[in-house]
């Protein structure tokens, strides 16, 4: 406790002493402090400057290296590109050369082949020349034909005229119009008149009935008639291979003229025709055409007494002998009746046409 009191008494003095001592030292201290601060700051400044210098140097080095690296890569790129361009230029130049050659070839060969075109034009002009000649010939031929036709027409006309004027021909006594004695030679018309046949009146054309006479059958048919003359064998024809018959035989058989049967050969109305024939022959001989009338006036007043065979009503009926059917002319379609036909003998049709030789005279 004593200490405590001592200390407490001293407290104030301590405080004063403390303050007093500090204040004396304080001025010095400030100076020292300032100096220390100065030195320290200077030293720190140097330190930091050195540090900064170091930093900048290292930054420089880093930048230097980095920039050199960049430059090198850039340069490599440039070199690469230049090399590449150079190569491409070379390739392009070479490609141009190839393309040039190829295009020239293509155009000359395929698109516009000058020599082919020249040939073509030459061929066209040759064809033209040929066609022109052919057409000229054709025109000439036509003209010639026309002239010929005209001349023929003229000739025909003159001929016809000469025929009409044939009476102008000169006789021995009288020279004709065209044969005047004062001329040196007769007019050409005179010669024509001499050659001309006088015209006759035109006879009315008798209409020929269609003759069904089979003997003239071949002559009646027109364009489609069979050849009537002997068949000529074909000239120089090679024999066809195979089992073919001789061509002459075949043609002979094919174009054998019709051998009609007696049935067909005889006309249907032969009897009638024969009667007509007879009547015509008699008509030629007759002086007078009127039928012979028995002395008409001699029996004028006498009544005619028919014979008993024809007068009775039980007379032989004509049915069965003269006519054979019940006829009704009103029902007929055309005006004519049927024609009676006599059948021919069957025997004669087969005459000479049977294969067997039976009955033939050897």
């Amino acid at each position: 406790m004593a200490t405590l009191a001592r200390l407490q008494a001293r407290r104030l003095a301590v405080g004063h002493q403390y303050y007093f001592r500090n204040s004396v030292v304080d001025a010095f201290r400030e100076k020292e402090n300032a100096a220390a601060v100065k030195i320290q700051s200077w030293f720190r400044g140097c330190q930091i400057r050195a540090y900064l210098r170091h930093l900048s140097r290292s930054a420089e080095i880093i930048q230097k290296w980095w920039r050199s690296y960049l430059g090198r890569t850039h340069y490599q790129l440039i070199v690469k590109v230049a090399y590449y361009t150079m190569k491409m230029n070379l390739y392009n130049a070479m490609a141009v050369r190839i393309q040039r050659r190829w295009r020239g070839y293509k155009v000359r060969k395929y698109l516009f082949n000058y020599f082919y075109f020249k040939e073509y034009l030459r061929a066209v002009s040759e064809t033209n020349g040929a066609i022109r000649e052919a057409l000229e010939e054709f025109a000439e031929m036509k003209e010639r034909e026309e002239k010929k036709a005209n001349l023929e027409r003229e000739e025909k006309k003159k001929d016809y005229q000469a025929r009409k004027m044939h009476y102008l021909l000169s006789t021995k006594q009288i020279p004709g119009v065209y044969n005047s004695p004062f001329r040196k030679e007769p007019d050409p018309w005179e010669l024509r008149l001499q050659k001309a046949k006088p015209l006759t009146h035109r006879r009315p054309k008798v209409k020929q009935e269609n003759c069904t006479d089979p003997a003239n059958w071949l002559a009646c048919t027109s364009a489609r008639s069979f050849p009537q003359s002997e068949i000529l064998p074909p000239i120089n024809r090679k024999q066809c291979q195979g089992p073919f018959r001789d061509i002459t035989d075949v043609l002979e058989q094919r174009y054998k003229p019709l051998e009609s049967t007696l049935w067909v050969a005889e006309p249907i109305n032969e009897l009638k025709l024969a009667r007509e024939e007879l009547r015509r022959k008699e008509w030629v001989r007759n002086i007078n055409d009127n039928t012979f009338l028995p002395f008409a006036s001699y029996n004028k007043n006498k009544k005619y007494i028919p014979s008993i065979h024809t007068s009775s009503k039980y007379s032989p009926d004509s049915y069965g002998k003269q006519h054979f059917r019940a006829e009704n002319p009103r029902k007929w379609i055309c005006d004519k009746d049927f024609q009676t036909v006599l059948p021919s003998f069957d025997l004669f049709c087969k005459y000479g046409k049977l294969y067997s030789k039976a009955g033939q005279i050897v």
Partner: protein
Amino acid sequence: IHSLTMDLWIPPNGQEGVMSLLRPLLLDVVPTIQQTAALALGRLANYNDDLAEAVVKGDILPQLVYSLAEQNRFYKKAAAFVLRAVGKHSPQLAQAIVDCGALDTLVICLEDFDPGVKEAAVWALGYIARHNAELSQAVVDAGAVPLLVLCIQEPEIALKRIAASVLSDISKHSPELAQTVVDAGAIAYLAQMILNPDSKLKRQVLSALSQVAKHSVDLAEMVVEAEIFPVVLTCLKDKDEYMKKNASTLIREIAKHTPELSQLIVNAGGVAAVIDCIGSCKGNIRLPGIMMLGYVAAHSENLAMAVIISKGVPQLSVCLSEEPEDHIKAAAAWALGQIGRHTPEHARAVAVTNTLPVLLSLYMSAESSEDLQIKSKKAIKNILQKCTYLPALEPFLYDAPPNILKHVVGQFSKVLPHDSKARRLFVTSGGLKKVQEIKAEPGSVLQEYINSINNCYPEEIVRYYSPGYSDTLLQRVDSYQPLIN
């Protein structure tokens, strides 16, 4: 009744009364009277438009059509004659005939045995089908075409002629109708008939084939496949003018479609034949031939060169100068333009024949029609753009209008820088002088051309030939101070 028909050679007046007189006679018992009445009606209708209308209005047609089906051949002929006479005047009358159902009966008449009846029926159908496409379609719908093709094969020449002319009239209207005709197999028969010696028949056949070929490439190819070349070329040499015209029309219609068809014609020597044909006739007959050359040359430069070596250009220039009609001149100008427009060789071939001045005069003359002026201008332009033949160009410097002058000077400016002989010739012939005298706006294309021409020559010559040079020299003399020693 017979006297009635005889008197009808003189055109009667008072038609209406005649119709009412004739109509009951058509229904007469005696067939001769019916036929004569029908014949009288036909002659009346044939003479005059109004009379034909009166026939239609008088309700005579249904009666005719009805009895056409039943009566004998003389009546059929007379009735078909009436239908033909009525149908030929105008489309309305033809429509009236179609409306009263005459087509079916006429087609039935086509199957008749008598060739006279067939001819009359075919003629009537032809006059009906001639007017327009609908009527032709009606005729085709009635089934006439196969029967017409059968009629063509008949031996009678008159029937063949008229059937060919009807086929031509039917196929001219539209491609479908032409296709119908072709489908009926008509082309083979028509092609065979070209060999027939009768000239009127050949005319009709050629006209029919050309109407078929004109519509499309396929139809033209079908006509060509029927092997008409080179037989058609013989028709070009015939004496008959219309046959030449129809033959050249046919060749033109074939050539105009594609280059291959034109090539075919050239290879067959058709061009030479056509050129000879053009040379041997005058007037309208030439026109299809000229157009054919134009079409062939238009397709490609090879074909144009083929036309040139066949000596086509002198012939065309003769046509151009001699023909009086404008449309033929226009066609010739167009054809020359087509020939000359391809390459300098072609243009030179056209220019050597001295046609360019003719074309220029046609373009400039006030009497030429619009069409002719347009075509000659186009031809001149086309040829000039490729022409490097300077002697032919020089006259143009003197009397051409400005729009053509531009092209001429342009051509000079293209040629002169490369050819020294041409430069010399240009100077000596006075061309350079003329060029200096041309007044052009600065900056225009013409001025550029003139400049490029002037650049080909040394300064002194250009100055020497420029206008007013003598004046400038004299001025210099005036202002010159002589050297006084």
